[in-house]
């Protein structure tokens, strides 16, 4: 917190709890003990006679004050004639004079109709929400951590209008994709918002390893996005700055919005406080492909080994010699029956999270120390993820006008094994979708024929799934430190100077092992990858605040220097001398090695003015200039301004009893943006053989200019009926031009892609927050909140007459492409051939024809709605969050593969007599007649009816309704042994899913290296349903 809170007005109720504590703490800190007066005591209660603990009692005009205890009682030295000021957030401040009696009791009433609300804005500046001309939405600590997710970002889903969160299903450390107000960049990896923790940018990148989602020998492993690791229990609040005007002061990287996280501090405590929380959750697969139970392995109703397809004989118990069966080696036939229980491969995951924090508030400062750990085991056997996190947050006031703060977080994340993501010989779902239904998984559990050398696999082309789980190790060990030190000095009462230095430093060491005898690494493989990242930000901010009559003013100038350094190295050896030993020294071939070391510096200067006229008109003007080392020297400086207006008609016009507050806002902003290092000049890459170089696949460009995003936003905020109903509506338009992208060119030009400024993307959208307190009685409360998101991203133009830009490459030629006139997120692939009437055209062989490539849909939803409700009854509260997504498609590889392999129940039709597909055949004269050609079931399903490249046939309406979060908690009325609060909760997330998409979670995303591809499912692992309990203790 960089802004002193001295001008804070009493606030209305239902403010987030954190803010109450925050304010409280600040007041408390300012209080100096005074001695030698008579003690005055009393209790502070609410209108219902309930004690108000931790209310502030001060003597007007002095710094003397105390907090009430748990019974609402206080005692402080005062003299007769003093005026006591009783305050507590959410209640009307009350003043009482000290009379002859040494007892002064106060009854505080709800300050329901006072509407000042304070939010954290850019640069951590706290401002009255009414003064803001742009949209900001906040989440409280409770909203973030009530139901814990392993990935912080997943915990934001459905809670914010205009924000789309899509979690991937790639194992325990899965990344999550977060997009605010649609995708503005053609670079699919450039659409993440900026994450700020305590004023300092933190890294949310995904550092990939491995190839594409169908790279047989090198599938990627998902180690998670950077922000995933932030401990939700440590978060005091999250402020989401959605538009460019709100985030303009953060510069380039804030084009896609900013997530401003404030961590918990000791400001809310007087003396020592201890809080402990513990969550234990269990996870199981939410959706699994169904396995048919009627036909076993083979082809054409005969059993064959090594086929992988389940078009074999009926599982009727007849005696068949079956590969992998216990009696196989002795040539013993066994009954041909259904034995494959896919769910048996998975186990119940357990996640245990514990957090202890100690807070202390002292005369001249405060401190918070916290330790948290989380240990998770996955539904995939032999996978785990552990995080340990120590944080300190402290501030000290050496003088009344000087505050020094420090916030530091040390995070250690590690895993002994994470699964690979995608489709290929090393992928688990690959092995499981091609299994034979007559094969018992138990036949495969003992996966070594000869330890560390020869595996027991029933197919020559795929690894045993248990070998994959237990021997295909992808481990990591990551240390991360982020935090800041700052000094806030009031030079005069009007002029203050903030100096701040912060860093995010991490070192991630990863290693992978493949044993000898694995299908793609018969000689074994060992790989080490190290990713070092450091970002340092140095800031100053000089602010001058002075009211001039009816006009309140604040002028600030600031500067920032950003230094970024990424160093990645990789060594991989595809051969091991001694089986089972995984070290660099045991590599017996020339390993492939690479090193990347990249730096960037951005210097910035900015200035802004906050002007207010009376209580109804506010204007913010910002201007920022950046100089970036990543751009050509003649084009490395770029300037961008913003203006925002807030107008409160309710302050000047009579609007009737029901309207408490009405605000209109308008803003216009521009943000400039640079690019990554080294995009200007061509350098030669090291090639496969030692002593060799090659041209890069991408051609850099020395004439790049900064990217530019222009944004316009109008909005309305209103409260009705004593704040029982709250509405926040925003409409926006964003136009991004001059994007620096590497777009595919004709390979005959010598390069696969060329860097250039190009493209124009327009995003329009509506977001609406509607919140109602339906019931508010003494012991009963019921609230309902809806967060509605609707946006459309449109591709206006690409480079010159380029007709298509491939945003992401899926399997089998299925792509995400930007085409002028199309939408962002359009999926292209082959289609059925259809008659003008829409009937599917079949070939003579009875199989549908595969038609041209076309747009088969869009991965973005038509709209989304997060609906949450809270019911409180005495100490019992029930909370639920439902995520609704309407529209958009997902391309499912599980559907294509599971059909090919004959493992899905949808492949049962026609097994006996063949299939006549529903559609037509084209006659020689061009007319159509009904298809009557019968085709064998195996030919029909195996690459016939919906082959992989047929994007149309394998895409589904991705609409869903998800019971995202549910919690039932009980706050125990125990006030003993110093206990202030004890609550027990039953919690769960991703509990229920309703969708038309078969076999998979519609939120699944493919992963190519470090890129998440929404709208494409490439045999991802099942998503998980999580449920458990949580205990909170506060002393």
């Amino acid at each position, binding site marked *: 917190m960089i802004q002193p809170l001295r001008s804070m007005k009493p606030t209305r109720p239902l403010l987030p709890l954190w803010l109450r504590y925050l304010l409280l703490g600040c007041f408390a800190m300012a209080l100096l003990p005074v001695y030698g007066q008579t003690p005055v005591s009393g209790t502070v209660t609410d209108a219902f006679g309930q004690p108000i603990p931790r209310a502030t009692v001060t003597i007007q005009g002095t710094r003397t004050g105390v907090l009430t205890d748990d019974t609402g009682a206080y005692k402080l030295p005062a003299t007769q004639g003093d005026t006591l000021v009783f305050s507590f957030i959410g209640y009307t401040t009350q003043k009482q004079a000290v009379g002859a009696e040494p007892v002064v009791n106060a009854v505080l009433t709800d300050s329901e109709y006072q509407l000042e609300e304070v939010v954290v804005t850019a640069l951590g500046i706290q401002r009255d929400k009414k003064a803001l001309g742009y949209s900001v939405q906040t989440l409280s600590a409770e909203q973030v951590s009530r139901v814990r997710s392993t990935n912080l970002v997943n915990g934001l889903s459905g809670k914010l209008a205009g924000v789309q969160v899509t979690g991937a299903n790639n194992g325990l450390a899965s990344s999550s994709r977060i997009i605010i107000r649609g995708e503005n960049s053609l670079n699919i990896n450039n659409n993440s918002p900026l994450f700020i923790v305590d004023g300092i940018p933190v890294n949310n990148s995904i550092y990939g390893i491995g190839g594409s989602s169908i790279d047989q020998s090198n599938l990627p492993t998902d180690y998670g996005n950077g922000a995933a690791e932030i401990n939700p229990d440590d978060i005091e609040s999250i402020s989401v700055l959605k538009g460019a005007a709100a985030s303009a002061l953060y510069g380039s990287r804030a084009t896609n919005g900013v997530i401003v996280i404030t961590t918990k501090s000791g400001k809310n405590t007087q003396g020592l406080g201890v809080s402990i929380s513990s969550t234990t959750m269990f996870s199981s697969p939410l959706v699994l492909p169904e396995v048919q139970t009627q036909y076993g392995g083979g*082809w054409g109703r005969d059993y064959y*080994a090594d*086929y992988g397809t389940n078009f074999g004989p009926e599982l009727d118990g007849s005696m068949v010699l079956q590969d992998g069966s216990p009696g196989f080696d002795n040539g013993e036939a066994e009954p041909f029956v259904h034995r494959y229980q896919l769910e048996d491969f998975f186990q119940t995951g357990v996640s245990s999270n514990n957090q202890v924090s100690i807070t202390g508030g002292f005369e001249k400062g405060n401190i918070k120390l916290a330790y948290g750990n989380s240990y998770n085991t996955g539904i995939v056997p032999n996978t785990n993820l552990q995080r340990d996190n120590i944080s300190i947050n402290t501030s000290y006031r050496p003088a009344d006008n000087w505050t020094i703060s420090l916030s530091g977080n040390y995070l250690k994340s590690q895993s002994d094994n994470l699964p690979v993501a995608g489709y290929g010989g090393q992928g688990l779902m690959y092995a499981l979708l091609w299994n034979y239904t007559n094969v018992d998984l138990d036949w495969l559990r003992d996966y070594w024929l000869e330890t560390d050398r020869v595996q027991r696999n029933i197919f020559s*082309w795929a690894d045993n799934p248990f070998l994959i789980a237990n021997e295909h190790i992808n481990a990591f060990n990551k240390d991360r430190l982020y935090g800041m030190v700052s000094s806030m000095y009031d030079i005069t009462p009007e002029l203050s100077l903030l100096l701040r230095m912060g860093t995010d430093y991490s070192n991630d060491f990863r290693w992978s092992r493949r044993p000898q005898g694995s*299908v793609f690494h*018969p*000689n074994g493989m060992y790989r080490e990858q190290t990713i070092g990242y450091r970002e340092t930000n140095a800031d100053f901010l000089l602010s001058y605040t002075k009211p001039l009559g009816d006009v309140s003013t604040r002028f600030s*100038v600031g500067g920032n*220097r950003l230094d970024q350094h990424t160093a990645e190295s990789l060594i991989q*050896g*595809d*051969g091991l001398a001694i089986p089972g030993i995984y070290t660099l020294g045991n590599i017996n*071939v020339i390993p*492939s090695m690479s090193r*990347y*070391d*990249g730096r960037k*510096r951005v*210097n*910035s*200067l900015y200035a802004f003015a906050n002007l207010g006229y009376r209580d109804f008109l506010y204007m913010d003007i910002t201007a920022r200039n950046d*100089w970036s*080392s*990543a751009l050509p*020297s003649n084009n*490395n*400086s770029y300037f961008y301004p913003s203006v925002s207006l807030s107008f409160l008609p309710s302050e000047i016009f009579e609007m009737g009893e029901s309207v408490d507050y009405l605000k209109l806002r308008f803003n216009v902003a521009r943000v400039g943006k640079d690019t990554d*290092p*080294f995009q200007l000049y*061509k*350098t*030669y*890459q*090291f090639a*496969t*053989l030692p*002593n*060799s*170089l*090659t*041209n890069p*696949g991408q*051609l850099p460009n020395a004439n790049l200019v900064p990217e530019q995003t222009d944004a316009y936003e109008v909005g309305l905020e209103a409260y009705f009926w004593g704040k029982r109903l709250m509405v926040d509506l925003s409409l926006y338009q964003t136009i991004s031009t001059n994007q620096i992208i590497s777009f*595919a*060119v*004709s*390979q*005959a*030009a*010598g*390069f696969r892609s*060329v860097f250039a400024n190009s493209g124009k993307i327009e995003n329009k959208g509506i977001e609406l927050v509607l919140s109602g307190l339906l019931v508010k009685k003494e012991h009963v409360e019921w609230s309902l909140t809806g967060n509605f998101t609707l946006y459309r991203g449109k591709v206006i133009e690409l480079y010159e007459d*380029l007709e*298509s830009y*491939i945003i992401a490459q899926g399997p089998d*030629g299925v792509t995400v492409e930007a085409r002028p006139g199309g939408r962002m997120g359009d999926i292209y692939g082959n289609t059925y051939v259809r008659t003008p009437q829409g009937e599917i055209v079949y070939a003579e*062989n009875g199989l549908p024809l595969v038609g041209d490539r076309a747009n088969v849909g869009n991965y973005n939803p038509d709209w989304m709605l997060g609906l949450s409700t809270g019911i409180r009854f005495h100490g019992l509260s029930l909370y639920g969050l439902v995520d609704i997504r309407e529209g958009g498609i997902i391309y499912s590889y599980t559907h294509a593969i599971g059909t090919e392999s004959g493992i899905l129940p949808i492949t049962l039709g026609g097994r006996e007599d063949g299939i006549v597909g529903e559609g037509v055949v084209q006659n020689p004269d061009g007319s159509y007649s009904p298809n009557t050609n019968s085709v064998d079931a195996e030919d029909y399903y*195996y*690459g016939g009816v919906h082959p992989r*490249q047929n994007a149309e046939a394998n895409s589904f309406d991705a609409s869903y309704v998800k019971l995202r979060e549910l919690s039932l908690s009980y706050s125990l009325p125990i006030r003993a042994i110093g206990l202030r609060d004890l609550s027990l909760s039953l919690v769960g997330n991703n509990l229920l899913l309703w969708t038309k998409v078969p076999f998979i979670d519609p939120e699944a995303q493919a992963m190519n290296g470090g890129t998440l591809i929404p709208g494409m499912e490439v045999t991802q692992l099942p998503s998980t349903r999580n449920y458990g309990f949580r205990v909170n203790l506060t002393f």
Partner: protein
Amino acid sequence: MKKFLYASFFTLILATAACTANFEEINTNLNQPLTVTGDLLLPTVIFDLADFSVNQSFGLGDIITQYHGHYEFNDLDIYRWTSDGSFWVLYNYLQNIRDIRQYGVENDLPGYEAVALVLEAYAFSQLTDAYGDVPYSQANQAESGIIAPAYDAQEVVYDGILASLERANQIIDEDAFVAGDILFGGDMTAWKKLANTLRVRLLMRISDVRDVSASLQQILDDPAAYPLFESTADDAIYRYQGSSPDLSPYSEGRGREYEYFLSIPTTRFVGLLQAHEDPRIHEWLGYKGGTTEYIGVEPGLDLGDIGRPTAYASKDSSFFYDPSKIAAIFITYSELNFLLAEAAMKGLISGDAKAFYDEGVAASFEQWGVEMPADFLTAKAPYDANNPDRLYEQKWLALYRTCTEAWFDWKRTGKPAFIQAGPGNINSNQVPVRLMYPSLEQSVNVSNYTTASQRIGGDNINTRVWWDK
């Protein structure tokens, strides 16, 4: 004083913030070199071309010329072909070749220029023989701003690459040298021979549409000026070392067993080898499991009619498990002799077709390390002037594993005649005669793609290229 302090503070801040003095240093990529020498690019080009040759040989050549057939994933076998970018990757190699050539020219090192010209001719010949019209004169000029190159008529491409080979032959002399030559170890004479041998191949390729007899005769008449391969020792074959990363894409350690054995010998291959009791069969193929029989699969069967691979012979497994056994064959002495035999037979050159044939067959046996039966050229498969198919059939065997050369040859000659569409084909019983352009061209190079497609008579697999009329 205070004002002065503030003023200084601001000046300092402004100066620091706007300071971009070391920006260029920060943005200098120290991970990779800005410039390059020919000796560092040459191994990359040869290795990439070797991989290309092996990949195309196993992935396409084996199937389209019916040495082998897939028992699964048989779209290729039944001609369910779509857009194909697999040869277009040569343009990436050509970028390195262009840089080698430029390095040679700029530094007056004719060895590099000559080697680059030979490799360039090879790469472009593969491209044009597969697709027909392809970008040539405007290719590889992204750095000059051409990102959507126009397609040249195949005839223009041929004129260009034949001229390149002629120039390469001219500028190679004893003083020339190259380093980084993992094909011939810097032996410039070997490159000179390769230039001329390749030229013979390409002249024969266009022999139906151009009179090439004078050019061929000129080469043959002046071995001093136009040296050709003189023995199998001259073969342009890249031999992988057999240890990662120097492994073929189909060898154990880099490729998957499954992919290697996915294609099985055809009745054509087994039949021809058995017809002449050709011992190369034992080198190339393995018996049907548990037997001492070679059973081939009929090419182009409907997938359902194939059954399991256990019913058939297989490819010899040692080529997979012995990591140094698969080699990348570009062009051989054996092929040269078959080319000359055909030329002599057709009267394009003076010379004894039989002698060339005999030498070609013998060289093939030598190349594969198989002892030729003494009566092979006299009794089992003697040259037969009345049966030209014999020559083409033996050439077909000799071209085994030589990229897709046998396909290009078949397109021109229609031989061996037994290459016919199989019963499961979906291409109206026609064997495809070209690849379809990569689908990306339809997105990023539309107008040039459209022009070229119309010019050649449609971008489909049955459009004949210029030399294949």
